[in-house]
């Protein structure tokens, strides 16, 4: 589903070149739950951004569903992001002036769905995260954990092939974090691949696969299956 060959990323700022990611190969199959771990500043977010087509890699090839993504136009990449990828961020990133329904509906608006279909999808997604009853509420009226659930609903509404999550529980207390983790696992069981950056080794252990990034070098780790 996702195949990277010799992908690398360097930033050039004022004559200084930072090699954020050294060339690596990686393949992720449909249905996998991959945790990305590593110290901060090592390149995890950069990796996730490349996987999510938010940033262009500077070397190598990246195939998404067998399709080469290097050098696609902004419009085309935008629509790929919209249809194939769901994003979940550490700080939720909900729009404060929009209610939950409108927030979740946002990605669907950039696609040709009828109003009826949009509404059905939004309600389903909210149902899935357990917030269907609060569609007219505003983000400020919810707890952090609930806000992240809304963000997950927003990521799910367009039925993407995979979810990208950058430290989705980083801003939550451990109890809420657990709730989010089990929600993500449920979603994964239903067939959506997940690529999640985390600091928490316990969470990483719950994934089906762990990738470690250290100083821009990407390595596969064995998962110690503790069933």
């Amino acid at each position, binding site marked *: 589903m996702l195949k990277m060959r010799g992908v690398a990323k360097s930033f050039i700022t004022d004559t200084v070149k930072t090699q954020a990611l050294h060339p690596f190969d990686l393949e992720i199959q449909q249905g996998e739950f991959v945790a990305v771990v590593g110290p901060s500043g090592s390149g995890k*977010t950069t990796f996730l*951004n490349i996987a999510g087509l*938010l940033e262009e890699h500077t070397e190598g090839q990246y195939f998404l569903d067998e399709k080469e993504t290097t050098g696609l136009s902004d*419009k085309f990449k935008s629509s790929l992001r919209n249809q194939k990828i769901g*994003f979940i961020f550490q700080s939720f*990133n909900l729009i404060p002036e929009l209610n939950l329904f409108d927030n979740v509906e946002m*990605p669907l608006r*950039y*696609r040709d769905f009828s109003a009826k279909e949009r509404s059905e999808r939004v309600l389903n997604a909210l149902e899935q995260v357990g917030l269907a009853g609060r569609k007219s509420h505003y983000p400020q009226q919810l707890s952090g954990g609930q806000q992240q659930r809304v963000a997950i609903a927003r990521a799910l509404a367009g039925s993407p092939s995979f979810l990208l999550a*950058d430290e989705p529980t980083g801003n939550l207390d451990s109890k809420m974090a657990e709730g989010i983790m089990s929600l993500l696992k449920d979603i994964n069981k239903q067939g959506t691949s997940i690529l999640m950056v985390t600091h928490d080794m316990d969470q990483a252990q719950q994934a089906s696969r762990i990738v470690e990034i250290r100083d821009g070098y990407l390595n596969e780790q064995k998962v110690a299956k503790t069933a």
Partner: protein
Amino acid sequence: MLFYYIKLAIYSLKRTPLLSFLMISTISIGIAATMITYTVSYMMNKDPIPSKSERLFTVHLSTWGIDNMYRMRDGKEEIPVFVTYQDAMNLYNAQKAPKQTIIGSYKAMTRSSEQPVKDATSTYIRSTTYEFFEMFNTPFIYGSGWSASEDEEGAQVVILSKKRNEKLFGGQNSIGKEVLIGGILHRVVGVFDDWPLIPRFYLEEFDALTEVRDMFVPFRTQMNNEWVASKDSSIYCWGEFELSDFHSVINSECVWLYFWIELESAEHRDEYLDFVNNYAQEQRLLGRFQREQMNRVLDVNESINHSNVMGDDSKVAVWLAAAFLFACLLNSMSLMMTKFHGKGGEVGLRRAIGASRQDIALQFGLETFIVGLLGGIIGLGLANLGLLVTAEVYSHLNAELMKMNIEIVITTLLLSIVTSTLFGLYPIYRACKIEPSSQLKSL
């Protein structure tokens, strides 16, 4: 999709009420200032009589003495816009144009015959010949102009303005009623309808912006009564004259009458000018017209430009107002930058979940459009309020000057929308440049 963006724009404007208020009011104030000055200058400058402006002409003659120049203007010798009584009569009697008219002026005490003497009011009166009304498309509610024969015999007839007819006769059809002018009975033969002529091009400079006079009488009648406008209107003289003596004035070189002609077409102008120059040569042999001859025949628009009705002041005012609008727009642009800057996170997010640069441009473009539209609507209201106040302050000027027509209303809205969108382009461009990853990374 459009409705979605309109909804987003409204939510977004409501989200930051102070910022939205500042943006919209800045634009509306700039628009109002511009449109107030523009309306006045537009009304002054538009062709007052489009159907005929190219074939109505006024005649100016070089009648001043060899040692007396009339005056200098812009470093050049000027000739008067008025003519003498003798020349007006000679040109009129020659009947060289299909239609010609003399326009004079005087002031007298007037009242209706039913009013007591103490109710008489001092009134500026226009005297002219019967051709005037047809030449200048004068509108009547009752009756019409007087006849050629009434003109010739100097009949005691009068035409009232709509306003004066309301005052004297309660707006009734007053044809046949009597009005006393300087103690002499005049019979009403016509009542004008509203006649919003801007500028009142058959007059010069300041008078061109006034409303129509309340009473019109035949020029011959004025002469028969030996009334001259000495103190009450513009009269310029050289040579020998005694202003208090009627016969002295009409035989002098004093100029105080407008002379207008209507030709079949603009092409006949040169022919008429030849006639005027020939006339000047004849007069020269009699000892008049001794200066270099600069006689001219000006059409309506030339005449307006010549008498500078518009005035350089009002042109400057329009430019100043435009500069003010520019400053307002720059201001609103910086407010928009602030606004859109605050939305960096939203832009990054929308980009990430699938909005293209175009989608973002459209979303913010619509927001600026709505700001411009609201600014335009409020600016329109303010401008009309401003014009009302201006009309109140300058009540001696024609009130029609301070009224917007539908073209100006549409222009105002368009100006507001186009300029604010134009000035919104840069903030929008900046918003589109936000990378989908940038805003999300640091969080």
